[in-house]
């Protein structure tokens, strides 16, 4: 329960922190830390406009997407407390729940019949397909280290098995999860949330037709996703057995540092060329494979 509350709390200041970091890095005054939340409140108050070509799918997609993301939070554990829902193989459930939300976003984009949104949906589907192995392989690695297949069990046994090589796994996990989080949330270097150029957009172009309340739901979903990945990163790098109060502070600190890191990455580099994205995403899968093989070697399963 604490985990759920903390993730939602982290999602509140996450986008604002990225925005503040980018403003400060570019020498601007910039908006306040809660500006994204204020924008959501504003969008909530507005009505939605629906194109004549759209149907039921387009109308239900934002709700389905957000509820899918909310459900996926339930399997994420916090500290040594079990997640609200926990069963064997729940990381597969988590992964496909997110894929399911993405599927709805994609068919909603296709529902508009716009050539732009079709193009964006095409890109999003392609890149999501490529990033999926990275996540599954990484989790498979964790499962192999610990011998469990649910998030709660994996993370509660991650640090207490007394494996001297745990640092390697956590660094690998940290790197891969950050990259996956950036791709899943359509940030640099794969996508640019700030761009106004329809032809270069991936995620943004898919939601061009969404307005008002629906758009607010989509934004909330993306903020939550950041916090969810932040929580996973936290679980990978902080041992589950520590004092609960310390853990809460550390959790918020990790989320904050993660947000600042995202802001800094977005400030000082340019975006990838579109045809480099598949290679870039595959390199993350390669990292996950690498950690998988390292575990195989260290646990004497390979040789």
């Amino acid at each position, binding site marked *: 329960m604490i985990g759920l509350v903390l993730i939602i709390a982290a999602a509140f200041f996450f986008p604002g922190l990225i925005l503040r970091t*980018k403003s400060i*890095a*570019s*020498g*601007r005054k910039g908006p306040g830390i809660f500006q994204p939340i204020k924008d959501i409140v504003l969008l909530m108050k507005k009505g939605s406009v629906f194109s004549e070509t759209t149907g039921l799918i387009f109308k239900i997609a934002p709700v389905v997407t957000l509820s899918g993301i909310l459900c996926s939070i339930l399997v994420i554990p916090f500290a040594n407390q079990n997640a609200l829902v926990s069963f064997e193989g729940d990381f597969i459930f988590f992964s496909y729940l997110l894929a399911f939300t993405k599927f709805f976003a994609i068919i909603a984009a296709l529902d508009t019949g716009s*050539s*732009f949104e*079709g*193009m964006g949906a095409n890109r999003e589907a392609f890149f999501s397909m490529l990033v999926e192995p990275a996540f599954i392989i990484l989790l498979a690695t964790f499962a192999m280290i610990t011998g469990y297949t649910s998030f709660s069990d994996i993370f509660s046994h991650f640090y207490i098995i007394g494996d001297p090589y745990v640092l390697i796994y956590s660094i690998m996990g940290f790197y891969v999860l950050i990259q996956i989080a950036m791709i899943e949330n359509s940030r*640099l*270097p794969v996508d*640019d949330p*700030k*761009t*106004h*150029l*329809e*032809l*270069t957009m991936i995620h943004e172009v898919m939601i061009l037709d969404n307005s008002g309340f629906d758009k607010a739901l989509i934004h909330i979903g993306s903020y939550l996703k950041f916090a969810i990945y932040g929580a996973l990163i936290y679980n990978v790098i902080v041992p589950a057995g520590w004092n609960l109060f310390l853990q809460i502070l550390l959790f918020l600190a990790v989320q904050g540092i993660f947000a600042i890191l995202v802001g800094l990455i*977005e*400030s*000082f*580099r*340019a*975006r*990838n*060329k*579109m*045809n*480099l994205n598949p290679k870039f995403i595959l390199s993350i899968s390669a990292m996950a494979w690498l950690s998988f093989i390292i575990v195989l070697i260290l646990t004497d399963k390979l040789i």
Partner: protein
Amino acid sequence: MMHPLHSEIKNDSFPLDLKSVPVFEYDVFYDRVSDLLKDEAKHCIAYYGVKTTGSLKFYCCIADDTNANITVFSHEHNTNKLVLKSLTPICEPLQIFEREIHENFGVEFDGHPWLKPVRYSHDRFEQSLRIENYPFYEIKSEELHEVGVGPIHAGVIEPGHFRFICNGEKVLHLEIQLGYQHRGIEKLFIEKKEPLQRCILSESIAGDTSIGHALTHSQLIETLAGIEVSETLQIERCIALEMERLAVHIGDTAALCGDVAYQLGQVVCEALRTAIINTTQLWCGNRFGKGLVRPGGSNYPLTSEVADEMLRVLSDTNRRWGEICDRIYSLPSLLARFEDIGVVSRQQALSLGAVGMAARSCGIPRDVRETHPFQFYKSFPVKPMTCETGDVFARSMLRNLEARESVKIITELLAIWRKKSRDIQRPVYVYKLAPNSFALSMVEGWRGEICHLAMTDSAGNINHYKVKDPSMHNWMALALAVRNQEISDFPVCNKSFDLSYCGNDL
């Protein structure tokens, strides 16, 4: 008396007596144009039709970059249903002019590959041809898809429609449809009799080139009215032109960085541009230099306070510009987005008749400041900057080089200006234009060669006015640049050219 073969004039000098412009038979005209344009150093700066009662007269101006001469000749026809042999198959740069003539007067050009409307002008020949029902070029195929962008865009940019035919992410063909900004500028120049109105009109041809177009217009009026301007004023005008170039080049670099999501480059360049345009504002009260250039004089003569401030801002800008350019052009993630993207080869640029930056980024040193000097550039030689590769990188690097050069030019001009006497000339709004004359005026705006041409009747009233913005030649270069590129690279290609929509639409 025999007609001379052709008549030659120079930029920013004297008008030509209309009678001395030779009228050729079309066959002779055809041969002469094709002969002249074989030489790479010559290019056609204008070819347009003038309708008088019962006849159509076509003027063609070809500039020789080696000796600064501009050759003017014409051909005349009295029939309305005109079919001429197209010059485009042998001189590709004329394609845009023939398209314009076809659109305005319904002249058929036999052998022209594609007489696509240029801008749907109000007085076009075929009124039934409308921008809404234009049949776009199509390729029928299951694998290909079309993407239409515009005319209203998501950013704050001008309206224009782009129709892509793509194979997946790869662009096979781009068709650019313009004309949404057509205001009938050329007709307004004749209708508006007040000299001041015309000045303001010229500043509004393209909002990002106010100084360039205003200077071209003022220079044209001075040529026709025989007004001499002092060297001090000429220097001030050159400074204004370079300030405009500097501001736009820096602003475009910011936009290019923004297009590839490089935030640092974008914000730093935006801040630098603001400093430059604010200096222009300090000088004349308008950030884009509106009101600064007027025929015969200036309402805002440069003062030594403004000059001091300008020097201070420039030296500061120069230092910071150097720093940020070092950052920008050494950042691998950004170079990956610029290099080998949107390549226009030298040969393509030549056959399109590209001018200005689009030509110089492909290694063609076409710069009116050097080849057809005007104002103070006559006694202040400028060496054109060139880049060789013709890609987005070359066009952005050229901006870097030209901006640095502009700072140098302004600094040197200010030093010369300080030694000159401050005889203040005020704008001249009452003038008598030479009757029955033909005059042209060219200026190297930041985008390239701007050309205004005017003709007067027997009473000295302007009865024909023609404007040519460099964008007119260069739009086709953009269409070629994105072929076989990824569609997601189109925005950065487009920005690297930064062509004017309203300059084309007039």
